[in-house]
């Protein structure tokens, strides 16, 4: 039997859950279909960075919109998501890097964005006392911070359900098709039909788009992270190094998360990843050199989440270029977590109002396909 609903969201990551929640707030009751469980992949196991810092310019408006929601996250989802705002700092390891950051901040200021601020060695030392003496400065985004990704995605899922969304977990959406002006999706033995379909299936979204005639240059990747045992508090902001691929964050409980984008091998069909310990050893060595206080910490666990990375590192966000009622929200390319709350709000506006005040036009799937609509 086919159940008629207001909208179908495929994918229970932070994006699918946020869109489902915001649709409910706008009076649209969706069904959300997740083949595993909400937050099983990248959304639940990423570094939790809530970062406007060092973003690609086309996604900055969405990131700023999202930041406003993060700062009132408890009001939205009745859960603080362990969000903490101690800033994020991009460390320059030498004068050349600092010069390129100076140019970047000037470019942003020229565009009217003021969230990134160039800092000198003294301010860097004040924010990150443990950093090596040789670093000449960096960039800070002071409102940035970090949250607990699994807690956050779970909170969005829970709140969406409370507001009237139907959340189906452990069942895959199959046989996606358009028929009589409605989108139809099979879920096990049942079918759902709705005028609106949101493709927020993360690493699995490229296949859905391709099957609907909108192939995009996307690959599946699995960035690795590791976490240490508790060490005495020594750092507040999230620290990012660009040259040596490192991100670094100490949580309130003392544990330290080490990331930076080294990749595991994903086995998407098995929901599995095989870690590359030789690359993790490089991260360990970088931390060893930059933060002597960390040398005796133990590594408790390492993992990688499966996600989609676009060739141009920008998400695919907005209406389909081919089909009415189809919306894409995927390909966040290792930096989608912070965007989740804002992207759900904007997506709901696109669906319900047909437009939004937040500039997202550079993120559309039409950058790969001339619009046929």
């Amino acid at each position, binding site marked *: 039997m086919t159940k008629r609903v207001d909208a179908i969201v495929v994918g229970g990551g932070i994006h699918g859950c946020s869109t489902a929640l915001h649709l409910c707030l706008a009076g649209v009751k969706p069904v959300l279909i997740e083949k595993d469980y909400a937050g099983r992949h990248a959304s639940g196991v990423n570094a939790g960075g809530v970062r406007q810092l060092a973003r690609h310019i086309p996604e900055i408006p969405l990131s700023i919109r999202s930041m406003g929601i993060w700062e009132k996250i408890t009001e939205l989802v009745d859960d603080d998501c362990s969000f903490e705002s101690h800033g994020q700092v991009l460390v320059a390891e030498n004068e050349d890097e600092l010069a390129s950051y100076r140019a970047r901040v000037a470019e942003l200021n020229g565009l009217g964005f003021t969230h990134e601020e160039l800092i000198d060695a003294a301010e860097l030392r004040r924010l990150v006392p443990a950093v090596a003496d040789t670093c000449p400065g960096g960039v800070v985004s002071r409102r940035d911070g970090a949250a607990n990704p699994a*807690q956050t995605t779970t909170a969005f899922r829970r709140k969406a359900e409370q507001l009237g969304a139907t959340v189906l977990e452990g069942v895959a959406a199959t046989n996606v098709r358009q028929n009589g002006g409605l989108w139809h999706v099979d879920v096990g033995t049942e079918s759902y039909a709705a005028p609106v379909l949101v493709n927020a299936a993360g690493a699995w979204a490229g296949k859905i788009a391709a099957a609907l005639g909108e192939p995009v240059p996307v690959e599946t990747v699995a960035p690795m992270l590791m976490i240490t045992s508790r060490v005495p508090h020594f750092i507040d902001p999230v620290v990012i190094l660009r040259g040596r691929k490192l991100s670094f964050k100490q949580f309130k409980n003392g544990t330290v998360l080490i990331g930076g984008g080294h990749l595991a091998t994903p086995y998407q069909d098995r929901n599995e990843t095989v870690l590359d*310990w030789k690359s993790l050893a*490089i991260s360990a060595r970088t931390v060893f050199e930059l933060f002597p206080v960390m*040398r005796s910490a133990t590594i408790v666990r390492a993992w990688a989440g499966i996600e989609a990375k676009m060739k141009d590192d920008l998400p695919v966000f907005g209406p389909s270029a081919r089909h009415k009622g189809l919306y894409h929200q995927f390909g966040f390319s290792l930096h989608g977590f912070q965007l989740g709350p804002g992207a759900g709000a904007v997506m709901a506006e696109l669906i319900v109002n047909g437009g939004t005040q937040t500039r997202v036009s550079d993120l559309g799937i039409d950058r790969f396909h001339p619009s046929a609509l």
Partner: protein
Amino acid sequence: MTMAPKREAYDVVVIGAGPAGLAAAATSAEAGLSTLLLDENIGPGGQVFRAIASTPVTERAQLGADYWMGADLVQALRASSAEVIQRATVWSLDRNLEIGVSIGSASAFARARRVILATGALERPFPIPGWTLPGVMTAGAAQTMLKSSGLVPDGRTVIAGQGPLLWLLAAQILRLGGRIDHILDTTERGNYFAALPHALAFLTSPYFAKGLSMMREVRAKVQVISGVTELAAAGDGQLASVSYVAGGKRETIPADLLLLHQGVVPNVNLAMAAGVEHRWDELQLCWSPVLDASGTSSVAGIAIAGDGAGIGGATAAVVRGRIAARAAVEALAPAAAAKLAPMATLRTDLAKAERGRAFLDTLFRPAKQFRIPAGDTIVCRCEEVTAKDILDAVAIGATGPNQLKAYRRTGMGPCQGRLCGLTVTELMAQARAKSPQEIGYYRLRAPVKPITLAELAAVPKSEDDVKAVVRG
């Protein structure tokens, strides 16, 4: 001395030098395969034969004849060409059969064509009120001290729980002059009836005579209280007393040391992290790997032998080690297999060694009240999460152990779920009216044993690594 593996790749890497690992490595090397045995203890033997090559206990009867069987296994291994590295902590194994190991204070990697996991068993968690108090420890920990250092308790000592190892430990403590005031036997009365159908096999197994004489020996010296329920430890920052109900009466006895034991379960962490499929075992109430008759797992190239394959005891472990090694030899060097004991003989040996096991499993099946705690009893020691905390999380939407991490961080501490995993699965299964199989287990991740950042940073650099780090 730090000793990294001599080669980058081996035909067979055996992990764990208990009964199964010792037998597997010796068999594989004897057939001419390049064999590496990695073991995290300072000497071979595992838990059953702990300190077999170094124990200060010299009077053989004190540790029992079964213990000294380990000496023969060690001798056979040392006579073979197997490379053996002690104090080698394997912290990673993946489906490509890449092994990450920490030796001395540096990490090393080795590759294998076949891996035989012989990581043995762990004591089942025994979550009662007060089990985290100083002065409460596991019987296994007490046995480790006894074997490696000859140390036995001298304060007021209570042993509580059930299972063959509990009686063995009690006998060993008494023989070495240690003190035991009470044994609180938690075996459920109904188990005696349930075990009856298996009694014949047990009566004709080697366990029977040994077990009976050991229990008689202990009962002659210690007051044993049967049918114990509602066990709890209490004290202000240190164990002071143990209380329980027996024969419908609550008793409280003063104690300085409480040793808890309710059986052992397979140590599955490394196998699970490697992606090996496991199933819930309804009789042994634990996760066991899905294996074929030669111990081969769902991951190509990985076999599991010994108690890690399902609890079977030391004698069965030795045979399972030989079977897994023989299967590896058959696959990699079929001609060499002729040197080894035929598979049919090994399978007969195994059937003999496993005789009586069903009786023990049924008789000593731990009671629900000691597996599934309630209220303020701590479940996750690393993050201090209580049974009530977990039920609260279930009530607001946590559906399984992995989802629970988002609410309570259970299983995310240094023990990697070893002390809480089974409890969490059964507690959530009960709360959600599902089977443990449906509820599932933590997704385990390397490093399965914590390694220091410095150890990992000390991984030798390959040329590609150097290129990746050098900038400009």
